[in-house]
């Protein structure tokens, strides 16, 4: 018995290593799919594997990835946020309104935009925790509300004529690297740390994994959920501000349908809609996969009708490949 137990604890034992490897394999499955797609593209078009093109892909992916990070937090706790696309629009319009040249310093539109996103997210969290309404409905409601707000605030017209310093945020380069990529990397690291290294992150998994057990362990469910939705709002605001800056306009209809892309990235990355599992690395990989496919199809000049078909097939295919590698149950 004792010996037996000790052998289980022996970190050098074959079975232990195997187990750890099997738990990790999920990521590898996706990684394999990702590498396969990249390889296929490198072989079919020489333009794919150039530093410049890879940089462009990451730039294009970054907005979706930021949103996907936010929604990963939410999904891990067992929730969902459909309003992220609308938050992108609201925060973008709000930021743009304060970003005209020679009005306010650039910090103002950024701060106001972020605040708007945090408030919007907090409102989602408030309704989800206070009412017994499923998050799907709450955020479907606020998605509609948010879209309406963005249109009201902008009177249905793009808010343009933004200051150069504001347009730098999402459109500039620092040492040759696009600001979007820098923001993406910094945010990715921050989100990973929150999820893996903090008490809050642990609580997210616990709440999503078994709400009752989390509660019985003294975790305040509503606090965790509030924080998570607020965080998601904040990240959506960041995405909204960057998008607005990149296209140098605050658009009331920006971000429509972004929620699906972001959720797709998270789920392709291994986050389960039933909550309790998911990693930021997976989500990033999911977002990159979508970005690479879309870039590749453009490079190969696939007709737009067929692009959609191919995109759909590859997404399903990648996740199939992923789950074949996965341990059963």
């Amino acid at each position, binding site marked *: 018995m004792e010996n037996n137990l000790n052998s289980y604890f022996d970190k050098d034992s074959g079975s232990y290593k195997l187990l750890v490897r099997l738990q990790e394999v999920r990521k590898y499955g996706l990684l394999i799919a990702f590498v396969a797609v990249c390889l296929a593209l490198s072989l079919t078009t020489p333009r794919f594997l150039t530093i410049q*093109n890879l940089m462009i892909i990451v730039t294009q992916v970054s907005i979706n990835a930021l949103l996907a990070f936010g929604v990963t937090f939410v999904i891990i706790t067992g929730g969902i946020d459909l309003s992220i696309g609308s938050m992108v629009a609201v925060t973008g319009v709000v930021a743009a309104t304060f970003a005209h040249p020679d009005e306010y310093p650039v910090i103002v539109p950024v701060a106001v935009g972020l605040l708007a996103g945090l408030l919007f997210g907090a409102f989602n969290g408030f309704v989800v925790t206070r009412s017994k309404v499923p998050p799907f409905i709450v955020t479907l409601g606020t998605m509609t509300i948010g879209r309406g707000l963005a249109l009201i605030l902008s009177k249905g017209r793009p808010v343009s004529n933004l200051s150069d310093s504001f347009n730098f945020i999402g*459109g500039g380069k620092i040492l040759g690297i696009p600001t979007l990529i820098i923001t993406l990397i910094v945010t990715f690291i921050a989100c990973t740390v929150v999820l893996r290294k903090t008490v809050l992150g642990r609580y997210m998994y616990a709440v999503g994994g078994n709400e009752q057990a989390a509660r019985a362990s003294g975790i305040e469910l509503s606090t965790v959920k509030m924080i998570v939705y607020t965080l998601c709002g904040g990240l959506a605001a960041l995405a909204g501000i960057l998008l607005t800056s990149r296209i140098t306009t605050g658009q009331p209809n920006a971000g429509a349908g972004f929620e699906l892309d972001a959720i797709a990235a998270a789920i392709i990355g291994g986050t389960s809609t039933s909550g309790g599992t998911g990693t930021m690395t997976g989500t990033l990989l999911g977002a990159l996969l979508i970005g690479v496919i879309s870039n590749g199809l453009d490079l190969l000049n696939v007709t737009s009708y067929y692009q959609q078909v191919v995109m759909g097939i590859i997404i399903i295919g990648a996740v199939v490949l992923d789950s074949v590698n996965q341990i059963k149950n």
Partner: protein
Amino acid sequence: NQSTTSETSKNGDGKKLVIGATMLSMQNEFIVNVHDEMAKKAEADGIDLITVDAERSALKQVEQVESFIAQHVDAIIMNPCEVEASSPAVAKALAAKIPIINVNSETSTKPSAFVGSDDVESARIAMKFIAEKLGGKGTIVMMHGYMGQAAQIKREQGAREILKQYPNIKLIAHQTAEWDRAKAMSLMENWIQSYGSQINAVFAQNDEMGLGAAKALADAGLKDKVVVVSIDAIPDALQAVQKGTLDATVFQNAQQQGSKAIETAEKIIKGQPYEKETLIPFQLVTKANLSQFMK
């Protein structure tokens, strides 16, 4: 019948005329402009204008017209989503003896009156400009709107008509950016990767996409080498033409479309003679004639 009784009642006791309007999409800047002009004119003439947003869905539009009919409005103004799919709405209104005026674009079923312009023409104008600018020779790319929508189909048709006349202009790629500036920017970035300096001109089916393409080209340092032309002449696009980032756009007169639509509706209701078809011409906007379009 209902519409005549309401007509007498309003003529008798001075009750306000009610016009129902269903718009393609209130998230489209040009359509919002048309609508605002309609609202302005209606207000000035003391008319109640009920506006609904079809959100680009022909089904929704048909339903909205049904609803207007049930409410016995005096006239309906429809900014159609689709040539064919919005047609049942026209037929239904006519069957209910309520005048229906199409604004901005057409349906296959002839309405009581039409005010607007032909989208095919706008693309012809834009593409012709590109062809002339390139001297009838070069390679170009085209950005589609949302695939399958009336405006996308017609603008593609117009562009291709002109391209046929210029066999030395090669369309090397065409792809949808769904009317969206951010998507257009990404698409252009990818095209630059693919074709680099091969591209001589970009035709975008609306200004939003044109502006996105121009931004991507500018970021890549290629703007001077590539002609970018789009359609709609939204304020941002006019600004861009002034700055030279956009070479040309095609002006569609929202002010005239809006006010003429209301005017025609009024005439029909009051039994006055009216134009069955009011065609408002497109105009090419370049740096040369920009001043007359800037407010």
